[in-house]
């Protein structure tokens, strides 16, 4: 088993990194002060990374860049080996739909869709993720229910309810199932636990780990909460990563 792990680890390292950033610079308007300046960042396959930084430090901007919603002014930005800067905006939207699952802090769900419809939403926009589900010989609804079941959310009475009836904790679990459906290679969670109480936070992170493991997905977990970082393999201090943030007056120092 130990040698298997070793082989697995080495094979992962041989593959191109999930995220590769070099000399990246981003400003909202040309010639404005950059909000992001990252000399180098590499995140490998199946890594579970804790990205820590105070709010307003440019984390959300980085997520928008990784998602292909925005493009850097200069530098290298590769996601899953794909150079994002050479793709057109429609191709980047496609790429995001096919390869990345997102969980947000709050307001994760479309209010007028049922639980199952919310979970299967990415399959409406990504043929690839839809095919992955169907290739397993499963219908989209079955796969959604399977994922919800893993997250202890597959109660028959909940599945077709309007999502507004759910508690915040339940909503976050539905959001997790949506991020995971169709096995995207990269899962990005942006402060997903900030609206949960302490017990539910660790339970939620456990769930996320388990699901990412079974889907061989890479997890980037963004938070400003130090207490959550223990189970992660690597912590990246966003303040140290982003030189643009360092250049700004230090209003918020992370201990």
């Amino acid at each position: 088993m130990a040698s298997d792990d070793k082989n697995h680890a080495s094979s992962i390292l041989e593959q191109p990194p999930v995220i590769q950033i070099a000399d990246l610079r981003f400003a909202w308007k040309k010639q404005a002060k950059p909000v992001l300046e990252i000399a180098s960042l590499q995140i490998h396959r199946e890594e579970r990374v804790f990205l820590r930084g105070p709010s307003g430090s440019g984390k959300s901007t980085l997520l928008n860049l990784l998602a292909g919603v925005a493009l850097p002014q200069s530098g290298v930005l590769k996601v899953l080996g794909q150079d994002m800067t050479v793709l057109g905006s429609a191709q980047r939207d496609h790429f995001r739909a096919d390869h990345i699952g997102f969980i947000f802090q709050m307001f994760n769900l479309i209010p007028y869709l049922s639980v199952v419809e919310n979970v299967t939403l990415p399959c409406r926009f990504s043929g690839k993720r839809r095919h992955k589900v169907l290739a397993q010989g499963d219908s989209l609804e079955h796969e959604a229910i399977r994922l919800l079941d893993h997250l202890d959310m597959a109660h028959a009475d909940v599945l077709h309810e309007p999502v507004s009836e759910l508690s915040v904790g339940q909503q976050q679990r539905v959001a997790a199932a949506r991020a995971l459906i169709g096995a995207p290679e990269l899962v990005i969670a942006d402060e997903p636990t900030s609206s949960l109480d302490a017990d539910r936070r660790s339970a939620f992170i456990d769930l996320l780990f388990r699901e990412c493991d079974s889907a061989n997905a890479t997890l980037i977990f963004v938070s400003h909460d130090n207490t959550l970082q223990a189970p992660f393999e690597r912590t990246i201090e966003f303040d140290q990563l982003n030189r643009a943030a360092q250049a700004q007056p230090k209003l918020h120092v992370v201990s």
Partner: protein
Amino acid sequence: MAILGLAIKSFRNRKFTTGLTVLSIALSVMLLLGIEKIRAGAETSFTSTISGTDLIVGARSSPVQLLLYSVFHIGNPTNNISVHSYEEISEQPQVKWAIPLSLGDSHKGYRVVGTSADFYQHFRFGKQQSLQLEQGAWFGEGYQAVVGADVAAAQGYEPGTEIIIAHGSGDESFITHADKPFRIAGVLQRTGTPVDRAVYVGLESIDAIHEDFEGDEHDHDPLMRHADHAHESEEGEVSAILIGLQSRGAALAMQRTINEHDHEPLTAIMPGTVLLEVWQMMGTVENVLMVVSGFVVAVGLFSMLIILMTSLNERRREMAILRSVGARPAHVFVLIMGEAVFLTLLAIILGLAMVYALMLFMQPWLESAFGLYVAIGWPNTTELILLSVIALCGFLIGLIPSLRIYRYSLADGMTIRV
């Protein structure tokens, strides 16, 4: 078309407010189309009521009034013309035919028109169409009547039925000529004109029942007596005369001659000219109604704009989620635009359905009360143009929130701070 499915679900989620918006636009569509339908119906009724008649002659009165009572059976003549004048005019060399019309009686609310066989022979409506009998024959001598298609249909009359004529034009007249029932000789085919709602009897028979009614105690049938003392009575009168001339060019001169008639004050009108005059009078009202209903449509569409705009901020979150799962700004645009298009089209369809339902409900009443036949058929060109303009306005209004959310969605990406 995943995004359209979402648009419909989103619409269903807010079905109460959007439903009210749809209803308000639909009501305005109904108003606009209803007015247009009545206008078109009125125009058709008007233009097809009489044709081939060069002059209408009546006692001195306003031309409009003369046209209304002689052709449309609306209102009453202020005075009658003596039979003497009628004969004098009909004997003029330029006059090809002259149809006498005697008004003043009714049957169950339908006008009774005393006339002659000339009416059946010469009266034209629509595109020079002549009257045709559906059943029976034109009335001959004696107490006989021919009824219009609506009268026959509504009362279930057929040749052989006997009817009682009442004095005056009211629906419920207390003074009837019950002692002299008229036997129906024939039923006319439908014309879509006031002819359908009239009862035609011989001029002599209508004079006869009146003479009888006026208290003269005769031992014998007044109709028989009438034949003996033809035109002896100075009371022999007609209400109006429809005249066809040898040549239309003579109409103006003939009109002047009649207007300057020595023996009694008369008015001659050219029906086409007065029809136009009446139509233009109504046209002003119709234009005002069109403008008002145009404003109502604008208010309806504006309420849609308000509904869409007020929901935008709330929906920015929704758009961010959609962006995160791969929606493009264009998708987000289509989502809002699709809703505006869907709302507008739904409102138009609902408005159309409402206008047809209303027409179906009101058609008999419009016809009996105003002599307006509103055809229930496919929307005409004007209506289609109106509907297209409403649809276009709806789409243009939909562009405002759609473009705004498109810009939001470009700027927000997946992260919004609202």
